[in-house]
């Protein structure tokens, strides 16, 4: 049976679309919507556990607010650099776009290095997920977030590797927007995790 109202498949700015929104972008937003549910479940569980616990143990001085602040600045900075990469790409300034993208991956890597230093400091003090409910939540929330940061870095490097020449860039640059959407989402998650875990 023919679908009389179905929008015809076509292209938009060189990328395929069936809905008026580029397919890749629509897919990424749907994926991010599911990711919002995932992290809200984790953060919601943390908040409910914390509010219902009669004596919340807390980090007891084992979390370094300074390191958390630097990590937040790194992620905010990387959000700026990846959006500047996209802007440069739209101006057809390929080498500039690639430079901003590489800087984004480096800033994300810096975040993971600092997180690794924090983890090793905790483990050297025998602070593990089983220590108490706070550390179970801490390792779960930051662990899943860290995996998402790692995924974002790999995504950025993948885009970088596929855009080495100008001709390939013209065909692949829409992926940069998708990588940017994912990266900004990872930044937003940390914007909430940082105060919840480090500040209160």
């Amino acid at each position: 049976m023919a679908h009389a109202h179905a929008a015809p498949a076509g292209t938009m700015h060189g990328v395929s679309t069936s809905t008026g929104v580029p397919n890749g972008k629509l897919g990424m937003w749907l994926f991010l919507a599911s990711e919002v549910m995932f992290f809200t479940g984790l953060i919601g569980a943390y908040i409910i556990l914390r509010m219902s616990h009669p004596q919340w143990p807390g980090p007891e001085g084992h979390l370094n607010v300074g390191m958390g602040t630097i990590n937040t600045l790194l992620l905010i900075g990387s959000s700026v650099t990846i959006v500047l990469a996209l802007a440069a790409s739209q101006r057809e300034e390929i080498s500039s776009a690639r430079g901003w993208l590489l800087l984004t991956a480096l800033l994300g890597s810096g975040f993971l290095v600092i997180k690794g230093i924090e983890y090793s400091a905790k483990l050297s003090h025998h602070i593990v997920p089983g220590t108490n409910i706070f550390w179970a939540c801490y390792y779960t929330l930051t662990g899943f977030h860290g995996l998402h940061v790692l995924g974002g870095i790999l995504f950025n490097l993948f885009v970088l590797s596929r855009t080495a020449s100008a001709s390939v860039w013209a065909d692949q640059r829409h992926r940069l927007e998708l990588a940017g959407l994912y990266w900004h989402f990872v930044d937003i998650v940390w914007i909430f995790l940082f105060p919840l875990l480090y500040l209160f």
Partner: protein
Amino acid sequence: MQISQRTYVVIGIWLAGLMLLGVVLSEASGGILPLPKWGIVTIVLGLSTVKAGLVALYYMHLQSDQRVLAWIALVPFVLIALALGVVFSSAFVRL
């Protein structure tokens, strides 16, 4: 609508500034600020919501992209509101 490079950088500075304000407020709680802890928590999480909004609207281009994407972004929050409603209503209902 094309957002200028300068706007992106200015928003980044705002994000960093609001984050540092949250750190200062949390460090000052119980000390120089005559506010209860829950008040500081509310303010700092409010600042986080503003920051998330800035990122979504300007960096993820929700304010200029197709409206359907904004609706997709809002769907999980409707579901979350429903889930929260069930959680908190169950706290008052004993079968």
